[in-house]
């Protein structure tokens, strides 16, 4: 394994795609689809949205030309890796009239994702903690997770909605990848620094044509990440966990509810929102039944339905639940934040509600925590 990494030419990306395919991987990447980026299978590096960026702001994500032909000036597809490891709908088991459940066996097509961003890698780790590392392992999740080969791309250009620096999840990937690319887009040379993060990644790196990276090359790559961090416009206020735990009864939740549509878009694009519900379906002849799991959201009324009715009827209580779970109670439950600072919930909110701005509004309205 070449620990120091390699410098490959821009055209080497095509070789990377070929090598992954030769190893039996279906190669996935962010692709342009219906005026947005979504994770899709690709055949070639030509399918990447080269020269395109998604100009994101609150409630608005528009694909525009970046003005140069870099491969990875865009940042995030609409949905993250969640779709690949925890599909929107999935059959859990089927049973006949004997009522013996036949579990859908774990199975997964090996997939390689090119362009997984640092925040999304942390999000994947967050999901893995929930589905795989908890007391009840989801075997289908594990199979899909283990079949993933992750080619991270360190971000060169944050979207205006990004705030990973303040969540300590980017813009440079620390772990959780097999290979990490940093695009070096310079007038005289356009290429990538490729670094390995796993044995499988190291094996692939060996096969890639390129030159061993020098200390100067690695410095150039670090500079890309530093520039991206410096360009990040949004930030989550510090100690948001403590802040939210003092804000349960704050009138600001009502102010958010005036604008919030309770449409659930934020949770559906969030790379860590993991909630699901189960639905039973029966066959036309009535002889078999199936239990399916599908993504659910704490923004729906049915989500909090218990005997006698729904607990969270008001939008204010649903927004509060989402935000406090994500940013505060996740720490109690899983020892980390549930937010990775990807900013998807800001861009894809149809009315542009900004989680960092709402946290800041609470911070401005509440006195700071007293010294214990």
């Amino acid at each position: 394994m070449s620990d120091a990494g390699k410098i490959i030419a821009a055209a080497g990306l095509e070789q990377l795609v070929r090598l992954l395919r030769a190893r039996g991987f279906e190669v996935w990447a962010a692709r342009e689809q219906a005026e947005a980026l979504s994770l899709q299978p690709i055949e070639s590096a030509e399918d990447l949205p080269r020269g395109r960026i998604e100009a994101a702001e609150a409630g608005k994500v528009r694909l525009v030309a970046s003005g140069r032909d870099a491969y990875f000036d865009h940042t995030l597809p609409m949905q993250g890796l969640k779709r690949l490891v925890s599909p929107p709908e999935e059959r859990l088991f089927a049973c006949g009239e004997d009522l013996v459940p036949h579990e859908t066996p774990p199975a997964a097509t090996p997939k390689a994702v090119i362009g997984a961003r640092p925040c999304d890698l942390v999000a994947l780790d967050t999901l893995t903690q929930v589905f795989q590392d908890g007391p009840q392992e989801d075997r289908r999740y594990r199979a899909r997770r283990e079949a993933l080969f992750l080619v991270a791309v360190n971000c060169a250009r944050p979207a205006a909605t990004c705030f990973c620096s303040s969540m300590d999840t980017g813009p440079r990937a620390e772990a959780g990848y097999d290979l990490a690319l940093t695009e070096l887009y310079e007038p005289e040379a356009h290429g990538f620094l490729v670094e390995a993060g796993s044995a499988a990644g190291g094996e692939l790196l060996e096969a890639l044509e390129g030159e061993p990276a020098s200390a100067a090359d690695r410095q150039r790559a670090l500079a890309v990440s530093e520039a991206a961090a410096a360009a990040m416009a949004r930030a989550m206020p510090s100690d948001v966990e403590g802040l939210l735990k003092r804000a349960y009864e704050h009138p600001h939740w009502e102010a958010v509810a005036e604008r919030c549509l309770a449409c659930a878009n934020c949770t559906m694009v969030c790379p860590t929102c993991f909630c699901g519900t189960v639905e039973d379906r029966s066959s036309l002849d009535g002889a078999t039944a199936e239990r399916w799991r599908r993504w659910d959201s704490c923004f729906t009324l049915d989500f909090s339905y218990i005997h006698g009715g729904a607990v969270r009827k008001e939008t204010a209580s649903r927004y509060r639940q989402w935000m406090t779970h994500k940013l505060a109670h996740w720490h109690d439950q899983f020892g980390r934040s549930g937010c990775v600072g990807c900013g998807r919930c800001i861009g894809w909110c149809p009315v542009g509600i900004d989680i960092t701005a709402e946290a800041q509004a609470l911070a401005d309205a509440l006195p700071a925590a007293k010294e214990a």
Partner: protein
Amino acid sequence: MRPKLAVWKFSSCDGCQLTLLDCEDELLALAERVEIAYFLEATRAELAGPYDISLVEGSISTAEELARIQEVRAQSRCLITIGACATAGGIQALRNTRDHEALKATVYARPEFIDALDTSTPIADHVPVDHQLYGCPIDRRQLLDTLLALLKGRQPLIPDHSQCVECKLQGTPCVVVTRGEPCLGPVTRAGCGNLCPRVGRGCYGCFGPKEAPNTAALAEQLLALGSDRHSLRDLFAGFTGGAPAFQKESQRHDA
């Protein structure tokens, strides 16, 4: 004995009943599980009531219908309304907020021949209903699932959440966010199979308001994105414009 199924028509276009006939691949198997006892669009054979399951299409728009829905209810163990007319009054509920006499005179050469109520109202305004299937027309899969659920005694899958959930499950990019296209998806009930957004069109709300719809906040955003008040008035006054939440929002922009 197979449960008896009846299909009733009130003020409507028949499209929702057609959805049952549209279950071409499933119809024969379904007919083995229920006895089609009354369905004039499919057969002139009629079996006397009572009926185990009644599908009711259409709104209450005439005095005759006002009386007939009571009879249908009395004859039905489980009554399911089907479609935008039966659940929200349909497009014909446009008259609910206008001068009916003046409308009749505008539309018909001989308005005195028109014997209709001043309003078009949903079935649930008149009799208790057990389940409601929404849409213009209803969704074939939802209709089948609901019938199969009743036959098994399980809960039918009729979501109350927004169309946005369906978009994101499908991976459909939001037309409001990517293009500023007017879309009622965030305030409209899911269940259609993501028909319009999937082909890049805004949702026009034919499944009616979702639970707790924040129509005012959506309208504000659509205004900011370039819609004018009259187009908002018309957008909310579509196939489910008679639903209270949409009617109220439409009227807010009728100035």
